[in-house]
């Protein structure tokens, strides 16, 4: 085969393109074997590993996302619960405060009323005492004034203390009797 090819080459005959020469086959095989081993042992395993890593990563991140979502919804639920609780508590506190306020108001009203009553009672007692004092003062004043008036009218006959005292007493008794 080799020799016939050589002879062909040497003779510069027209070649038959359908019959491969030996170097053609040799180098063709060498080239293909290199490419085949390169893809088989190097390119494809590395690509495969990378693709596996990629799908693992994608799956991992999907899982992580799902987990995060679950956590988030759980947290949301938790917060909603807390919020509801807080609202309830606030309502309770408001209710208590209102009740207490009302109670305080009632108590204050009662206290004020009592105070007012006490004050008015005191005032009445004071007024009564003042009246009494004024009355007793007036009683003596009026007697003196009347005596003065009478003695200036009837002369000094009534200057005698003892008699005038008696007249005043009588007069006052009459006055009392009239007023009663």
């Amino acid at each position: 085969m080799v020799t016939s090819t050589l002879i062909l080459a040497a003779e510069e005959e027209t070649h038959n393109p359908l019959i491969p020469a030996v170097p053609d086959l040799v180098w063709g095989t060498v080239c293909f074997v290199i490419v085949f081993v390169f893809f088989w042992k190097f390119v494809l395993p590395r690509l495969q590993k990378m693709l596996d890593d990629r799908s693992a990563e994608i799956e991992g991140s999907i899982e992580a996302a799902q987990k995060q979502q679950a956590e988030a919804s759980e947290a949301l639920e938790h917060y909603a619960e807390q919020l509801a609780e807080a609202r309830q508590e606030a309502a309770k506190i408001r209710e208590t405060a209102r009740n207490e306020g009302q109670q305080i108001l009632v108590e204050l009203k009662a206290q004020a009323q009592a105070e007012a009553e006490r004050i008015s009672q005191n005032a009445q007692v004071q007024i009564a005492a003042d009246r009494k004092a004024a009355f007793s003062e007036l009683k003596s004043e009026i007697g003196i004034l009347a005596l003065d008036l009478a003695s200036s009218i009837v002369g000094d006959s009534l200057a005698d203390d003892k008699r005038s005292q008696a007249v005043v007493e009588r007069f006052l008794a009459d006055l009392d009797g009239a007023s009663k």
Partner: protein
Amino acid sequence: MVSELVSLALGVGVSEAGSGGFEGPTVNEFYPDALFFIGTPFEINRIMLARFVAVALILLIFGFGVRRLKVVPGRGQNIVEMAVQFVRVYMAEDLLGKVDAKRFMPLLTSIFFTVFFMNITGIIPGINIAGTSLMGVPLLLGLLAWVMFIYAGIKKHGGHFFFKALFPPGVPKLLYILITPIEFISTFIFRPITLALRLLMNMFVGHILLVLCFTATSFFLLNTDGLWKLIGAGTFAFGLIFTLFEILVSVLQAYIFTLLTASYIQMSLAEEH
């Protein structure tokens, strides 16, 4: 036969050129002078160098691409990933299912990228010849596909694989006289040959077309006068269009080769043929 066809096509090309002195490309395009190890089985010529460049490109691009793989890919990693995923999803997994696809991924990926990169050297400036335009690589890969689908079938069904392949169920017994030889030829002989030939001829003809366009351009511009030079502009435009077309053919042939290999394996693995 093919060389005759090519020279016929070139004969037309010459007559169209309409003047003497124009030499179109011949089949010798694919037999450039040996550069190293001349006369040994390791002889290296320009096409072998093109193959080395293709392999180097694969090693560089994918080597750097997967050097530091990140779970969140950068731009470079994205391209490498997309390229491999293209083989995995649209060829391997689509036909074989996820479990079997994994087993055959090294084979299918290396077939796809070997074919693609060796095709694309056909339009890389300075190389300008596809590594797959010599029978060696297409034949090797065709035979590899052949070995792999037989291996897959035997591993799955044992010796019963051949029986199922040659005697498809649901056929009247008498018809096996007709069907079995057809099945044998189409499955065990034509499959590797068609795989190899389809690839080889695509790249072969593509290269011839490009050479024809550009040598014609050169001829018209340098060796003719006046309006003839305008034809050179036309042939140059055709050359550009065919260059773009070759990119498409490079991807397409790599895709077809890999897809057919996967589908042959899938047929071998299938429960019913």
